[in-house]
């Protein structure tokens, strides 16, 4: 009984204490929750202020240059057995492509791409692309500078980024001018481009006007090679090169048609120049190149095919390739068939395909795979290339095993 009394007294005292302290406790809780709400509102207000600052409102930010904001490099290291291009089996440093691009406000942008090419005893630097553009709307973008010409799918898609494609090299007839390509890959001038919806499909166009290429004689070890050369600084004739491409994209199937017309001048370095800025021109020669391209991807199968037709008053010819790739995760096996045929009528008069050292009849079968170490940064490629080329009317064969480590950082 005594114990019960003691417990009752304790409960009474505790109850009295609680009754006096709870209002103070609840008051302090109320203060805290009000402070919390106020703090939350303040945070939201500050976050809103930070994000509501429109682009360009910070006037100092406008002064910051965009060059180098998005700076990247594509490069590759190769090994190949005895080949037409490099002779004995050898390691080769591929072209190192450095690029940067930038946008200013909503409509202005630019791109700059240069390539460093290693030779045995020297290193050369070449300007590949530099242009600035203004976007009026999706249907009209105007650019000025040096572009990769809008002839086909490949030339407007991959540029100098070997990691972006599966094979080790571009199709041989689409190689860059310096490496014996037979299609003028670059143009210096103006480009209009844009896209518009046409029913369920989308139509894209490119229209370019600029300096036409020349053909330059190059001498190595007593032999003379001819190659195309873009005219960056001045055109040697009044007639400008025009090029265009239309591409219809219907549910991922892209079908394009394209063409170009230009006058090509043949520069002969062995003749005395009239002035430092006007190398001697042997002949000017009107050339047409036109064709069609197809691209589609169905589940894991990717198909690219392009056809080019060469026409001038003396000669016609054709070049084409078809490439299949099976995109199976990190591993992408591929096959490509590529061919250049020249139907010479009057070979001694021709100033284009038969003059260009890469313009002989040639075909290649290529098979191999690309393995992505990291799909954004690094890939290994292995391919076997069967190369048949007519030299002085006789077929010459090369069977080449090639390996490449391509990367992009």
């Amino acid at each position, binding site marked *: 009984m005594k114990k019960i009394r003691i417990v009752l007294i304790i409960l009474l005292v505790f109850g009295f204490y609680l009754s006096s302290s709870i209002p103070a406790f609840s008051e302090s809780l109320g203060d805290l929750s009000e402070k919390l709400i106020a703090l939350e509102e303040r945070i939201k207000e500050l*976050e809103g202020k930070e994000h*509501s600052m429109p682009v360009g409102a910070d006037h100092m930010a406008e002064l910051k240059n965009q060059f180098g904001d998005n700076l990247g490099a594509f490069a590759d290291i190769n090994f190949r057995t005895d080949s037409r291009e490099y002779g004995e089996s050898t390691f080769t440093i591929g072209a190192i492509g450095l690029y940067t*691009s930038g946008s200013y406000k909503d409509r202005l942008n630019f791109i700059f791409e240069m390539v460093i090419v290693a030779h045995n005893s020297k290193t050369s630097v070449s300007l590949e692309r530099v242009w600035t553009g203004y976007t009026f709307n999706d249907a009209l973008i105007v650019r000025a500078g040096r572009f990769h010409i809008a002839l086909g799918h490949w030339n407007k898609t991959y540029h100098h980024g070997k990691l*972006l494609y599966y094979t080790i090299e571009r199709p041989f007839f689409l190689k860059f001018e310096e490496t014996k390509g037979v299609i003028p890959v670059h143009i210096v001038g103006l480009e209009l481009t844009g896209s518009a919806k046409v029913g369920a499909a989308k139509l894209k166009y490119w229209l370019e006007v600029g300096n036409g290429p020349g053909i330059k004689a190059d001498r190595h070890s007593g032999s003379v090679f001819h190659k195309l050369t873009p005219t960056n600084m001045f055109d040697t004739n009044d007639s400008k090169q025009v090029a265009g491409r239309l591409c219809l994209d219907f549910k991922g199937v892209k079908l394009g048609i394209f063409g170009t017309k230009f006058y090509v001048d043949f520069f002969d370095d062995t003749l005395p120049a009239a002035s430092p800025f006007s190398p001697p021109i042997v002949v000017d020669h009107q050339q047409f190149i036109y064709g069609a391209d197809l691209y589609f991807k169905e589940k894991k199968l990717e198909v690219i095919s392009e056809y080019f037709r060469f026409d001038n008053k003396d000669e016609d010819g054709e070049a084409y390739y078809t490439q299949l790739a099976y995109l199976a995760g990190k591993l992408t096996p591929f096959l490509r068939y590529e061919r250049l045929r020249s139907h010479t009528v009057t070979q001694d008069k021709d100033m284009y395909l038969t003059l260009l050292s890469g313009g002989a009849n040639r075909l290649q079968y290529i098979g191999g795979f690309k393995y992505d170490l990291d799909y954004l940064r690094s890939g290994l490629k292995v391919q076997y290339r069967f190369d048949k080329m007519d030299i002085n009317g006789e077929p010459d064969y090369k069977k080449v095993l090639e390996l490449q480590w391509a990367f992009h950082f």
Partner: protein
Amino acid sequence: MRLLLTFIFLFILTFPAFAEDFVIVANREGPLKTAEVGMVKDIYLGEIRFVNNVKLKPINLTEGEVKNDFLLTVVGVSAKEYKLHWIKKVFQEGLTLPRFLRSVDEVLAHVRSEKGALAYIPMSEVSKIKKDGQVVILQR
């Protein structure tokens, strides 16, 4: 009772495992009034960049189920394919990469402040925009 429990168990087993759902949102004063799938796809791929003279600014959430679900069902590509597409796009056309933001609050703050902004947020976070007159849900 046992029969009822069995029924409930079987019902749960047959229920499809939906990925987290999302809604597409835009700035109220922006040019987009509906989220037609083909158009949203083209905007996120950088194929449509202007509507009614307003520059469109697609916003992505960083890695996660909602982003993957959106890219697969609306844009029709995996997250890997999306990154590859944009690496090529920047290299080819000098475009600016779409914005990637970490939280729904950040996404909504951007949509609120930029006229051409377009984004997707998880269905579970829709309550965050109800009081906000500047952000609207676009009907698909």
